[in-house]
């Protein structure tokens, strides 16, 4: 019987009925402390430290603080120190402050060659779906599950349903992977993929770089999806090859990976078709990622929304965002611009942003910052001179971390500040209490920083 890529990976990992084996467990400081404590209380060990890797990313400052004990915020310091202590006690490798391999967990996994096709990957972080870009089954888990995987290297799981989102047509200039996924979530809603492992397919996906595929898979969770996946191909293999964690016998590995693709005629529980050529640069206007419009649109009128739950949500969102229905999106003035986070902080994103702002200056009214996804991305960008271009234009250039995506560190919005952000969540208070977030692509964020408001990147000179 023909199988989907998801089915092939799931079936190869089922240790017992409903119990799957985990090939890679990524760990960070926010969701692991209680899990390690649970192991200690029960006298349990980490079963496979050699399949586990930790890093500090969520609450670290991005000012170059070189060691955990120098973190100014006491609770953050204690949390990162606890991570280092726990990893030392249980033999888990950790890249903490001071390591040139540290970075956002979903950036360093692929970067180190740890994220590989055909594997199962979990992390106590919802954006673990990112790794599915390599043809892996990757999903976020809670702290109890983190403890479970640490102790057993397995996870009891209900088998999700499968969905295939097939894109057709050619992506137009100025339309980025971020716009593809924002438009998709806008259509399906924040609950549209609940219960599904989603395979993204079609030529507009196949022609994306690995960075672009990661952007798409990353935001699967914003549509409620359990996991997002893209079939591995030569682009994938070329990305993995030569990285520190890549398989020793690479050719043999590739041979196996070539068999992962969904078989002809395999059945999905749900299929969605999307015309990529009809997608424009997107901007969110509300407090959930599905509240999104094209940049040339206006702030929507809640009265025009039929479903009462959605209408009420829109009314609350507009009140929080301090937006009037009918306002052109391009006339919304901005205070801050943030380029970073696990969805858009890789070298390709920074190259796009730098190219857009080269020789220009950030608007007087805007404070703009760029936060590379990892120390390696930072080093690569600096070797290419991207930092100089961005600094000259008036951007702050920071060290790596989750930064202002979630405001658990000193990078936050002040009450009432409005931000164009390349991150993945525009929830109330996400970037700082009272902060107002508009999600956009790196290209759109860069242009908005220069102009002080959103612009249609396709028209921008």
């Amino acid at each position: 019987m023909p199988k989907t890529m998801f089915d092939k990976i799931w079936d190869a990992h089922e240790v017992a009925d409903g119990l799957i084996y985990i090939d890679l467990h990524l760990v960070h400081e926010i969701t692991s402390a209680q899990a390690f404590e649970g192991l200690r209380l029960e006298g349990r060990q980490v079963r496979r430290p050699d399949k586990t890797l930790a890093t500090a990313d969520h609450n670290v400052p991005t000012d170059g603080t070189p060691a955990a004990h120098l973190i100014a915020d006491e609770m953050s310091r204690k949390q990162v120190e606890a991570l280092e202590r726990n990893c030392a006690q249980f033999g888990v490798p950790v890249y903490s402050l001071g390591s040139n391999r540290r970075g956002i967990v979903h950036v360093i996994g692929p970067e180190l060659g740890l994220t590989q096709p055909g594997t199962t990957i979990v992390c106590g972080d919802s954006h673990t779906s990112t790794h599915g870009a390599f043809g892996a089954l990757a999903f976020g888990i809670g702290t109890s599950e983190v403890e479970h995987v640490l102790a057993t290297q397995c996870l009891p799981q209900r088998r999700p349903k499968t969905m295939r989102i097939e894109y057709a047509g050619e992506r137009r200039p100025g339309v980025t992977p971020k716009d593809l996924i924002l438009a998709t979530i806008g259509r399906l809603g924040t609950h549209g993929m609940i219960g599904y492992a989603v395979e993204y397919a079609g030529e507009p996906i196949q022609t994306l770089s690995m960075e672009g595929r990661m952007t798409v898979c990353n935001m699967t969770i914003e549509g409620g999806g359990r996991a997002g996946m893209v079939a591995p191909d030569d682009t994938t293999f070329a990305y993995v090859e030569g990285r520190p964690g890549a398989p020793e016998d690479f050719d043999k590995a590739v041979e196996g990976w070539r068999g992962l693709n969904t078989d002809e005629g395999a059945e999905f529980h749900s299929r969605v078709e999307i015309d990529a050529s009809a997608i424009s640069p997107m901007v969110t206007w509300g407090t959930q990622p599905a509240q999104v419009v094209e940049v040339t649109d206006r702030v929507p009128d809640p009265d025009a929304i039929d479903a009462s739950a959605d209408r009420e949500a829109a009314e609350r969102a507009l009140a929080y965002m301090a937006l009037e229905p009918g306002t052109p999106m391009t006339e919304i003035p901005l205070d801050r611009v943030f380029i970073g986070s696990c969805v858009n902080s890789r070298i390709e994103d920074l190259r796009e942003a730098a190219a857009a702002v080269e020789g220009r200056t950030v608007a007087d009214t805007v404070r703009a910052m760029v936060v590379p996804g990892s120390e390696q991305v930072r080093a690569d960008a600096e070797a290419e001179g991207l930092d100089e271009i961005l600094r000259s234009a008036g951007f702050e250039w920071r060290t790596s971390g989750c930064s202002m995506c979630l405001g658990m560190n000193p990078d936050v919005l002040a009450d009432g500040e409005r931000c164009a952000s390349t991150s993945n969540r525009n929830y109330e208070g996400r970037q700082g209490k009272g902060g107002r977030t508009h999600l956009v692509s790196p290209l759109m964020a860069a242009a908005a920083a220069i102009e002080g408001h959103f612009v249609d990147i396709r028209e921008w000179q």
Partner: protein
Amino acid sequence: MRPIDVIEGGISVLDRADVDTDQIIPKQFLKRLERTGFGEFLFYDWIRSGEIELERNPIFLTGRNFGCGSSREHAVWALQGFGFEAIVAPSFADIFYVNCTKVGLLPVVLDERHCTAIADAGEARIDADDQTVSFSGGVVEFEIDPDVKHRLLHGLDEIGLTLRKEAAIGEFESSGGADRGPVTTAL
């Protein structure tokens, strides 16, 4: 985990869809290293600003896609710490639902119509074993995975259950099943 049997009493209603875990427990409370003490921070900003009021009842009832967003189990710890023993909604975000079942906060999925009727009733009796919710308007059944139900009814340590399958895990590893993926200790 405490075993779950019958949960009975008043219902606190939050009539909103797509409530994300950032609202349930804001980020500033995620730096604690314990599993306890999160109840007082539940819906911190919404309650402090007076935007919502929430009574302490055994049952919480809310809108579709509850608990979307971040995987933070702290959200479940906060709801449980506040005093809720069961949550009724038309749908839950996947990770949130699983997190609930790990700590013994019973998630109950019912369609919108029944949710509204139960909210109006103001009180209910949820029987985890029978998989029923009884209220003044009638009795409705809900679904739950049989293994999850068994574990919740008996308050079983799930890791302990998996460790009993040691032979199968060991066999899987020694027969090449664990050969995929990187060796993180050899980078």
